[in-house]
């Protein structure tokens, strides 16, 4: 795999497309166990990301990822803003100055992004948050020597679906305790869109 400016722009554009298409669905998921603003917040944030990065020329992927981060931080609104914003910020810092990302660089970047999310949200695995998608994916990548888009996507999907049976102990859903069981975690679903978009973009490039 190689992530360059062109396919990273494509990646973010596709994330935006999926978020816009599933805005209502994300809202419904969040209404069930949260405050119901995840769809609207993510749609606003990624719309702004697309506007920003398609209007800017980048020399390297790390600057692009930093702009993604800053846009999400200031535009998303709910808890997803600081969490995704921190994730993309840590990713961009880890690969600072890189024109393109190869697989080892992407792996270490994603590892730092995960560490950022956990630190920012004071969250661990199995608390029914987006950590439950990011951590299994980082573990999966660390067990691989090369990137397989189809396997990556199914690992993301499996992790997202596994959040349904968890009881939330972090985030708004934690107030509902056992009532949160049986619902997908909205942040894990939006994380799935981010990773399935990446898989699709890199599949095309194969």
């Amino acid at each position, binding site marked *: 795999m190689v992530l360059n400016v062109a396919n990273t722009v494509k990646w973010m554009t596709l994330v935006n497309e999926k978020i816009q298409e599933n805005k209502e669905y994300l809202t419904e998921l969040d209404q069930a166990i949260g405050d119901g*603003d995840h769809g609207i917040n993510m749609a606003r944030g990624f719309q702004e990301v697309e506007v920003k990065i398609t209007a800017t020329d980048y020399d390297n992927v790390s600057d692009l990822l930093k702009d993604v981060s800053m846009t999400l931080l*200031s535009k998303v*609104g709910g*808890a997803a803003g600081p969490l995704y914003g921190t994730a993309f910020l840590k990713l961009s810092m880890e690969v600072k100055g890189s024109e393109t990302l190869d697989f080892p660089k992407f792996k270490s970047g994603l590892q730092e992004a995960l560490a950022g999310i956990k630190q920012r*949200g004071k969250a661990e695995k199995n608390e029914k948050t987006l950590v439950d998608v990011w951590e299994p994916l980082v573990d999966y990548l660390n067990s691989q020597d090369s990137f397989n888009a189809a396997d990556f996507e199914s690992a993301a999907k499996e992790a997202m679906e596994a959040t349904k049976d968890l009881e939330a102990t972090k985030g*708004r859903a934690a107030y509902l305790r056992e009532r949160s069981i049986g619902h997908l975690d909205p942040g894990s679903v939006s994380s799935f869109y981010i990773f399935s978009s990446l898989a699709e973009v890199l599949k095309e490039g194969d």
Partner: protein
Amino acid sequence: MANVSIVLVSHSSKVVEGIRDIIKQMVPAVSIGIAGGTEEGEIGTSIDKITKAIEEVHSVGGVLVFYDIGSAKMNAELAVELNEYENVHIAEAPILEGAFVAAVEAGMGKSLEEVQVAAEKNDRR
């Protein structure tokens, strides 16, 4: 030395306006910055609003920030980290009761550390 200032961060602008009214009635001599709701005026928190509120009341005495729920804490932390403020602390205390105790202490000219300890102890709860 200037009094410690206070910043209130909430998902709702009405919440922070109301808390400021309550505190001002008793402690008029302490600056209180507020950051309630999102840029669009909806329920949520905004790093930009929090940053502006801190800048508005910032002084050598320092600033103590209070937050309500969820994203408020994360956005408050980010506002402090991204701006690399040194004398801005985030208090772990209930936003109304904590900020009230802090304002009273700040009005007596206590240091940032003393005000924070008093707010977090919050034995008037």
